[in-house]
Every structure is written in structure tokens, then in C-alpha cells.
């Protein structure tokens, strides 16, 4: 029991943290409706991977990789450099995601995914109905005869702003 605790729980504690954060983030991305919260979840998810890399480079008792007399163990510098790049990527993703949310808010007046989708489905249904009416009309009229009836329904092509 004690061995199990030492090896698997305490010995691998960094992986437990990574695993926990990863699941929290992933769950937030999947389960939350609010677009901003989704983005926060995505950030937590990415951060867990950053920690995975950083903890991988650490060695107990090691110093920074600078040549010092009497010091033989150095921490691996590469994971940190890699993760700096990944952090930059994460920042860019967050900025772009937030910019999209701002524009979505301006276009739809909502940032709850359900509300946005509901607005979309309403437009989609109207468009589908129009398209079906037009297809039916196209089948009713002879191919080369001029279409007599005006197909009336207006298409919603434009969007605000």
C-alpha cells in the first residue's frame, strides 16, 4: 500500500496534476455553452501540456545548464524553449479566439453558443424553406419556358454590420 502510494501517487504527482488540469480544461471546452468559458477551458487544457513539458525537463538536484566547476547534473533546457514557443502559439490562439467572440457578439448579440446557434438555425430554416420552394417551382415549370411566377420569397443574404 505504502509502495503504491510512493510510486504511483506521490512519485508521479506531476503527472496527476497535468492529468487533472487536462481533464478540467477539456471538460470545460466540451460542456460549457459560453464561448468565453470554452476559450478559458482551452487555455487550461493547453497549460496542462506546458506543465507536462516543463516537469519533464526537471532533474532533482540539477542546476541551470551553465558550465560550473563541480556541477555535473544539468536540467534539460530544451523543453522550456519548446514551451515558450507553444505559449506564444497559445497566446495567439487566445487573442484570435477572443477577437472572434467580440465579432460574434457584434453580429449576433450573444455569446452563449445555444443562442448563437438558435439564431443560425432560424436563418437556416428560412433559407431552406426558400430553397425548397424554389426547387419545387423549378420542377413545376418547363425547362425552357420562362418562369411565370415570381418566386417571391426574399433571401436572407446580408448580415448586420
Amino acid at each position, binding site marked *: 500500500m505504502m509502495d503504491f502510494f510512493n510510486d504511483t501517487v506521490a512519485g508521479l504527482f506531476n503527472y496527476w496534476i497535468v492529468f487533472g488540469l487536462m481533464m478540467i480544461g477539456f471538460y470545460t471546452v466540451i460542456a460549457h455553452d459560453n464561448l468565453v468559458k470554452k476559450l478559458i477551458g482551452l487555455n487550461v487544457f493547453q497549460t496542462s501540456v506546458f506543465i507536462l513539458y516543463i516537469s519533464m525537463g526537471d532533474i532533482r538536484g540539477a542546476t541551470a545548464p551553465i558550465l560550473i566547476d563541480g556541477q555535473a547534473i544539468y536540467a534539460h533546457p530544451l523543453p522550456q524553449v519548446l514551451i515558450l514557443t507553444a505559449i506564444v502559439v497559445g497566446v495567439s490562439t487566445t487573442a484570435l479566439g*477572443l*477577437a472572434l467572440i467580440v465579432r460574434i457578439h457584434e453580429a449576433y448579440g450573444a455569446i452563449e453558443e445555444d443562442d448563437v446557434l438558435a439564431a443560425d438555425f432560424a436563418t437556416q430554416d428560412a433559407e431552406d424553406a426558400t430553397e425548397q420552394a424554389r426547387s419545387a417551382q423549378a420542377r413545376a415549370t418547363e425547362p425552357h419556358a420562362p418562369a411565370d411566377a415570381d418566386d417571391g420569397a426574399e433571401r436572407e443574404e446580408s448580415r448586420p454590420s
Partner: protein
Amino acid sequence: MREHTVLRIVTQLVVAPILIFALYVQFHGEYSPGGGFQAGVIFASAIVLYGLIFGVEAARRAIPPTALRIGAALGLLVFGGTGVATMLLGGNFLEYDVLLPKPEKGQHYGLIIIELGVGITVASVMIAIFYVFAGRGRHRDEDEPA
């Protein structure tokens, strides 16, 4: 927040040291922790602070969005241009050894130049992001890097 005297005075005192610290982190980056990315973010944070206290308009007057657009492009060009220069001098892309007669000097200065490019781009983009978010809905500038 212009009416808060304490905030205003402290900001006036602090902005310049932050900018200088950003330059320190930038140009001391190859000896101590730091480098272009960190320096750029610190530099941008000074402008963001200024914009928060004195208003985005004041910040826009200090650093206009057009300058940011040019800065973001220029930084990337400095980075890539260094790589192209090493190619023209007979090395591979970003092989700094060929920049100067002594390879270690070449490495040293090559790194400083590309970090400068990174710093300029990061600072410009960070400030641009701040402008775009903070200015949204109040003021539309057609030159705004979207």
C-alpha cells in the same frame, strides 16, 4: 480613471522605468533571463497601463496604429532579413557564424539582431491587440490592424 490622482501620478512615474526595463530585458537577454518575446510583452504592458489610465485615445496619440502595423511587419522582416543575409554571405538560413569574421562574435550579434526583430513584432502586436479590444465599439479606425 483620469480623476484618480494617485493612479495618475504613479502611472506617470512607472511607465518610463517599465520601458527601460523592457530594453534591459531585450538587450541583456543573451546573458540573463530574457529575450525578445519577454521584452516585447513588458514594453507593451507599459503602453497598456498608459492606455488604461489616460484613455486609449491618449495611447493612440503616443503610438499610432499605423506605426504598429509597420512595426509588426518590420520586426518579422528584421528576423527573416538576418536569415537571408546569412544566406547571401554563404551560410545556411540563420547560420550566424558567417555574419562577422569571428564565428562566436557572429553568433553573439546575430542573436541580438533577431531578438530585436522578435521584440519589435511582439510589442507591436500586443499593443495592437489592446487597441483593437479596448477601442471596439467606441472608435473605428480604418487603419487598425484587424
